[in-house]
């Protein structure tokens, strides 16, 4: 039984019978996934390890291409166009679909250059334009105040929480439409986690956000829809309150009650 969110051409991201496999078909990571995400919504994906959550994320921005022997069937649409289409410019795709990784890792550059990295690669040269983009991105990621007078010092010396917000700013600087976050707060202290969640809530209206997490409380706190993945299938999808209180599928229930991690 795979429940699908309201379909319709107006959704931002849509998977239609999307399956994904590694090692030349040996290991099946996703089984004919059907899922639609409305623009400006915030979806949290939960499920035990190996349920295909990260694979789905890395399929959306095609980072999976870097792995040898991957294959997919079905379609994965962004604004109605298949991301695996022939004429898709992967670099452009990755700019529209930004990603924040689990471990907060700044590039070995200054704070300024970290954020300006994406725009520079897009071809933006002018100093003034870069300055405004960087400032806007840092402000949106709510870290500008803390770093505005040491923009050119190395980003390595920031704290874990700051580095993750810098990573968010890095993505925002490229002006994405969708933001993917792969367990962004798993390595952070509770205070930083709350601040990241607060930022996500604010960004919700401007961007389509897909968040992968292990922490049910996080899903509840940011009041998002929750999609439950299990062994590569979408088991259930619906508002956090409903999923946690009245799980339809026993597998969801077992997961929430902590029977298996």
């Amino acid at each position, binding site marked *: 039984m795979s429940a699908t969110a309201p379909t319709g051409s107006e959704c931002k991201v849509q998977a239609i019978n999307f399956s994904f496999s590694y090692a030349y078909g040996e290991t099946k990571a996703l089984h004919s996934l059907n899922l639609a995400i409305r623009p400006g919504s915030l979806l949290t994906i939960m499920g035990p390890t190996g349920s295909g959550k990260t694979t789905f994320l890395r399929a959306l921005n095609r980072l999976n291409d870097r792995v040898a022997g991957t294959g997919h069937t079905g379609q994965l649409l962004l604004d109605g166009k298949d991301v695996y289409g022939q004429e898709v410019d992967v670099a452009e795709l*990755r700019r529209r679909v930004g990603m924040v990784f689990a471990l907060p890792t700044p*590039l070995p550059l200054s704070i300024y250059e970290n954020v300006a*990295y994406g725009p520079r*690669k897009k071809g933006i040269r002018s100093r003034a334009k870069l300055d405004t983009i960087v400032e806007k991105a840092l402000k949106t990621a709510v870290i500008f105040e803390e770093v505005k007078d040491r923009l050119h010092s190395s980003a390595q010396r920031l704290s874990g929480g700051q580095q993750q917000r810098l*990573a968010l700013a890095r993505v925002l600087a490229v002006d994405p439409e969708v933001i993917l976050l792969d367990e962004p707060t798993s390595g952070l202290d509770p205070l930083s986690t709350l601040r990241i969640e607060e930022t996500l809530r604010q960004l919700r209206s401007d961007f389509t956000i897909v968040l992968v997490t292990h922490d049910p409380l996080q899903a509840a706190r940011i009041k998002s829809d929750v999609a439950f993945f299990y062994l590569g299938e979408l088991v259930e999808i619906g508002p956090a309150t409903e999923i946690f209180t009245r799980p339809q599928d026993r597998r969801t229930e077992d997961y929430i009650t902590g029977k298996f991690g």
Partner: protein
Amino acid sequence: MNAYTTSHRSKKEDRIMLALLRLSAFLAVAILVFIVGYIMVQGFPVLNLGFLLSSPTKMGREGGILPSIVGTVVLTLLSAAIATPLGVGTAIFLTEYTREGTFSKVIRFGTESLAGIPSIIFGLFGFLFFVIRLNMGWSILSGALTLASMILPTVVRTSEEAIRTVPDVYREISFALGGSRWQTVTSVVLPSALPGIVTGIILAIGRAVGETAAVIFTAGSSLRLPQSIFDPVRTLPVHFYILAREGISIENAYGTAAVLMIAVLLVNVSAYLIINRVAARRLERR
């Protein structure tokens, strides 16, 4: 008597072996330090500005070794300038542009067997190909191309090692921000790997500076100050070899050897400093 319990016999054996090991360590270091010391001491009296800055007269019996110094520096730098793009390019190709397959195995095999070839064979090849076939004659260029082929494997190996130390997550971040492969290489991979690559190039230069067999057949042995890279040149080791073997001037021979040793030690020490500075910086960053 179980082999693992400390019996009387093994205690004595232990002491003897320890003494032997300490002796071999002392001997190894002493011999090598003695050689450097001996050359420096013998060469020192001749080492003055005149010796370094003037040209030789009477076939090197008197005068200085300026042409050889200039020749060695130009020849080594040119060979590094040729080997660096090829070596680093190969390393980038092996790490960033291809997966381990038959093609990369062929390149690796080529590089490794090139590394095993003795310098006399490079000398023969350089003579046949650059001097005669490509009609470059005995010249700095022929010598540099020959030396470049010799140090290419070293540059490839050290560059590849340096590139592999760059955490893969940096590449992921760059790609995820819409960076292309070449942009990722030039903006993220190479800057982090740069110290390792530079060290590799310097070590390669260290080896090239002391080379004789490959250079005698390709760069020639003319004592005149080279005007362009098409002129022949007698590098320091070759000049030392000729002066020493032919008894033309033992003092100048030692002087040349001392200059050569200082050059080689300076090059290796600078490579060493970079390694330590990078290791220290990497520790402090973690």
